[in-house]
Structures are given as structure tokens and as C-alpha cells.
């Protein structure tokens, strides 16, 4: 097997909450708790889960926008986790990020041409004329017009701004694009346009995606493999088709069954598993398996014995004592 493009080995990220001078008086939130996975070049991995599950924190750790607390992030064999910001610089162009909120992620005082040229200038990619040409290419790639370079972000709609965000992420020809909820702020009809654009770009440029989203149907559309997270841990991982067709972990089952289907017969409703309660706070997660207080099949063992991610089929893993 070829070397994976990205390999995360037991990555953890914790925050301390509170402002006591002595660290032991502050509570620690384990946002990401010993997460491991690999992504091959050209593959798309989905990270799904509800709010507070750590999917966005994990995404930001992979780009090293956050420092990790423990673990390794191997990008093409090089561990990025311990590198200083200066040592990271040569790797930055290869890993780029698309953010959720296209209104907040673009500087309102700068023109589009400027926003797209900045990464090229910072990384010394060509002369002024070459950069201008590249900016034109980028706009064209994401379905915008050449004369948009002179406009400001507020002159664009949400969908168009997300196109600009994508163009900026692509400016330096990255190998890995981490997209954090790239379509969730958009209207339904525009969502489909952006999803299609991401699929096209991947095909044309051979990109690798980490696609973070809470919308399961979008993740199914975009990714080949998916990792389901719950309170900082991966509870199930496998091929997207298989996981959606036959989820192994009880949380995945409930999550997939909970999505309202556009099917007026109500057939999907009949099979719904309705979980009780809310997602617990990550600052004080339940003992043992984090999911046990809401789990319909929990046993005594789950209360104190945390299950590890183990193989449950070809290319498939689940962290449940009872997953077949």
C-alpha cells in the first residue's frame, strides 16, 4: 500500500477552561481524544457528528491552526505536530482550508483580486503579471467572472462568497483541502451548486478532501470514507456507502435514522430511533463509553469500560462492545 497522504496518530486536543492561575483548578475539555485515521491521495474523508463532537477542532488541528496536545500528524510522512510555525511554512501551501461562514472568512475591506493574490504573493508564486493571470484562472475555475476581481466581498451573495473562499483555498495548488461545513450556511438551491463545484474541482485537480459536516446527506454525496465522531472520539469509520447502508455503531444508527427524509409516506419515520436527552457536555463526558447514557443497547459494562475502535468488517471499524 502506498504511503497515505495524511495520517493522524492518536491526535488529542484539550483546552483548559477557567482562569485560575493554578492549572489543576481549571477543568480540562478534551475536544479531540486520541483520534487516528489515514487518508490516501485523491480520497475524500467525511467527518460527521453533532455539535461539540470535536470535528471542527480536529480539522483545525490537521491544518495546525490549532496546536495539538498529543499525537502525530504525518503529512506525506513528515510529522507536522511538533513543528514550529516557521518550520511549518513550507507545508502550509499543501494543506488549505475552506471555512463555514463565507461572510466572516473574507476581509470586507479588500477586493476579491487582492484576496486571491495574497497567498500567491506571500509564497512568491510568480511576477505581478503571472499572479494576475492565476487569479483570473481561479475565478474561472469556481464559476465567477474575470471582472469580479475589482469587487468587494459584500457585493456577493453567500454562494458566490463561498466560491471565492474555495478559489482562495485553491490558489497555491494544495494537495489536501479541509472543508469545514462549506455548505451549511447556504440556501438549499445554492448548496447543490457548491457541492457540485467541489466534486468537479476534485476530479479536475485530483484533490484530497477532509469534508467536515453535520449534514449527512451532503457527506454521503461528497465522500468515499466517513468517520463518525461523538464527544471527541471516532465511534465508527468505514466506506461511506457501507456505513450509511448498514451502520454498525448504535450512535451512527440513530444519527442516520434521525435525519428527516423528503418522503411523505412516513416510511422512514416508522424506523426512527429517537435518542433520549442531549449530547452531554464535552467538559464532563460520561464514564466508559461516552454514548452509554443515550444508548438503546447499553449494558453494565459500557458504564466503566470504554470500547476501542476495532475492525468490524472489511475496511470498517467501530468502537462498541456489541458491534458485529
Amino acid at each position: 500500500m502506498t504511503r497515505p497522504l495524511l495520517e493522524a496518530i492518536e491526535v488529542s486536543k484539550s483546552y483548559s477552561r477557567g482562569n485560575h492561575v493554578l492549572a489543576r483548578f481549571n477543568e480540562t475539555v478534551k475536544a479531540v481524544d486520541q483520534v487516528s485515521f489515514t487518508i490516501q491521495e485523491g480520497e475524500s474523508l467525511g467527518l460527521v457528528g453533532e455539535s461539540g463532537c470535536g470535528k471542527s477542532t480536529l480539522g483545525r488541528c490537521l491544518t495546525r491552526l490549532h496546536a495539538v496536545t498529543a499525537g502525530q500528524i504525518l503529512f506525506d510522512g513528515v510529522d507536522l505536530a511538533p513543528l514550529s510555525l516557521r518550520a511549518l511554512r513550507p507545508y502550509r501551501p499543501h494543506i488549505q482550508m475552506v471555512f463555514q461562514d463565507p461572510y466572516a472568512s473574507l476581509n470586507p475591506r479588500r477586493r476579491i483580486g487582492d484576496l486571491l493574490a495574497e497567498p500567491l504573493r506571500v509564497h512568491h508564486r510568480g511576477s505581478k503579471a503571472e499572479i494576475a493571470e492565476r487569479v483570473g484562472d481561479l475565478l474561472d475555475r469556481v464559476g465567477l467572472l474575470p471582472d469580479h476581481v475589482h469587487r468587494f466581498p459584500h457585493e456577493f451573495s453567500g454562494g458566490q462568497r463561498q466560491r471565492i473562499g474555495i478559489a482562495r483555498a485553491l490558489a497555491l495548488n494544495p494537495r489536501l483541502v479541509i472543508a469545514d461545513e462549506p455548505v451549511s450556511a447556504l440556501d438549499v438551491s445554492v448548496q447543490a451548486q457548491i457541492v457540485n463545484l467541489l466534486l468537479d474541482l476534485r476530479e479536475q485537480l485530483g484533490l484530497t478532501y477532509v469534508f467536515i459536516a453535520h449534514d449527512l446527506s451532503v457527506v454521503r454525496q461528497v465522500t468515499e470514507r466517513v468517520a463518525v465522531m461523538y464527544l471527541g472520539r471516532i465511534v465508527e469509520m468505514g466506506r461511506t456507502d457501507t456505513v450509511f447502508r448498514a451502520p454498525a455503531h448504535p450512535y451512527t444508527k440513530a444519527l442516520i435514522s434521525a435525519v428527516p427524509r423528503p418522503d411523505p409516506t412516513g416510511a422512514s419515520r416508522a424506523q426512527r430511533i429517537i435518542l433520549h436527552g442531549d449530547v452531554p457536555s464535552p467538559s464532563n463526558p460520561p464514564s466508559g463509553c461516552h454514548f452509554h447514557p443515550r444508548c438503546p443497547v447499553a449494558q453494565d459494562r459500557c458504564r466503566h469500560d470504554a470500547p476501542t475502535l476495532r475492525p468490524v468488517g472489511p475496511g470498517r471499524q467501530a468502537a462498541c462492545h456489541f458491534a458485529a
Partner: protein
Amino acid sequence: MPPDVSMATVPPLLEVTDLRVAFHTERGILQAVDGVSFRVEAEEIVGVVGESGSGKSVCLMAVLGLISGPYTHIEGSVRLMGRELVGLPNRELRKIRGRDMAVIFQDPMTAMTPVYTVGQQIVEQIRVHQPLSRKAAKARAIDLLDAVGIGAPAKAADRYPHELSGGMRQRAMIAMALSCNPRLLLADEPTTALDVTVQAQILDLILRLRSEFKSAVILITHDMGVIAEAADQVMVMYAGRVVERGSKNQLFANPLHPYTWGLLASIPPLDGERVHRLPSIGGLPPSLLDLPAGCAFSPRCRDVSARCQGERPVLDRHGDHARACFLPLESVAAQRRAGLAASLQPAEAFSE
């Protein structure tokens, strides 16, 4: 019995006729709701779908009488149980709001005041409309919290909104809305801010309340999945107008407006075969300050004709299914079949 009584038909619970809401802005008159008519029968759940700017929320605020001010202009009629609400003084409206109709907003955190406990807020709501003692109102508040599925309701009543989770807050807000047994509940994206597993709980609750509290519900959402689960009747709005209206089954099985069809088609399926490309609606929703002439959807419509660009289609009925479109009915079905095959529209450049 005098004939006029026996012959009189019972008025629908809510009847909205030709509602128009305009805002006067610096950049001109913004017609947010443009001639919307619909009715809600008792215990019925009417779903309203549309994207941002479609006028769905403004429509709901106008029904509640919450839109006022020097720069707004409201026309048309809103009748609740036969009584006209448009033009009613605020003093009268306040008696009706909360008692006969109540609202559930998208974000319970901003809809509740942070400085009173959940219990105090429900008690206040009850005592405004009903002559109950503080103690009796508190007991009723706890009953309500229990009815919406909050465990340990007495404890929850003494909590402040920020101490509850998102799902619990939304339940508390529903309890508050139900406190006077309103005949009509208006819910504006009640599940959008919630996680999927909690959304399923709240939808389930809304359906249960209909049978237990006998309330009719107007359910505003952008999610066709939520509509399919909960609504009986559906209205699809676009740029301030209703473009299609019908029963849920009609709308999903046989959408008559190209916009409805596009919305349904652009949802990635969660079950069955994965499609290679999503059929998407090209272009963007129009700005309400700069609406295209003719049909507002015409610049994005694949079946646009010269007539669509010059003339505005009105809602015409086909049985109890209505749509505002010039496209002949026969070609709607053909278009949908063709649309599925040709869902490979490239991402287009925007000329805007």
C-alpha cells in the same frame, strides 16, 4: 333554527387573504410579502418552505401582528377565528397573542430573557392571560414542562435559560407557547438550530402536541425533510409570493412548479443509489429590491418562455393543488423526466 345560522359555514381557524407587507428602505420599496393567501383549518399542520428572502418569516410576523412602524406598510386581511387582526390596536393584539396564537422561534436563547428563570417566564405568560394565583400558575408551568418531555420539571423551572441545553430550551419555549392552549401555533424554523438527534425529538413532540393540545401549526422551514415528516398542507414561497400550494403528498409526488421540483431534486439522497451529480437550480435567489419583470423565478428557470419574462403568473388551481406558472401541465411531467436525465448542468458563471 333560522336559516342563516344553519347555513353559515364555520370560518377556518386562520384565513389570510392577499397579504402584502412592504418596507420602505433607503434603496426603495421592498415588497417582502406580495399577495399571499392561505387558510389553516383546526388541528392542521401547514408547512411553509422557501429560501432566505422568500418572505416566509415576514409573513408569519405579519400574522402575529408583530410588524409595525413608520416604514412598513401592511395590506390585506388576516382573520383568526373570524376576527380581523390587521389594523387591530396593539392593546387588543396583545390579548390574542399568547392566548389564541403563540409562536416558537428558531433560537430559544435569544427569544427568552436571560435574567428570569424559565419558570418565572412561563408563569408571567400564564398570568397575563388567565386569572390564576402565582402558586397555581407555577404548578401549571411545571405540568407544561413535564408535558413537553423535560425530566425533573420542577428543577428545570428554577433554571435560567443559559443553564439548559439547546434541546431543553426549545422544549421550554414550546411549553411557554402552549401555556394558554392556543388554537394556533406558529413555529419559525423550530428545529434548525438543533442537532439532528435532538431535532427528531422536537419534531416528534410537535406532532404529539397536535393530538394532545389540539393546536393547529404553521411550520416554517427550509428543510423539505421536515415538511415531509410533519406537514399536512404545504406552501412553497419564492420572492414574497406563493408559487405552489397543495397537500404534502401532491407536492412531493407531483410538484407542479419548476422551483419546487428543483428544490426537491437538489437534496442529496440519503438512501438508495448515490447520484453522480446533484441536479441544481442555477443562479441565485433574486434581490427583493430588484425583482425581474414577469415571473420572479424566470431567470433561474430552465423552461422559461417569453411570456414568463413579461407577465407575472398568478396562483391557479388544479383541483386542490395550485401553482403560479405558465408552463403547460403536460410538459411539467416531461420536464421532470428530462430534468433527471440532464441533471448534468455545468456550474455556470454568474452574469450578475
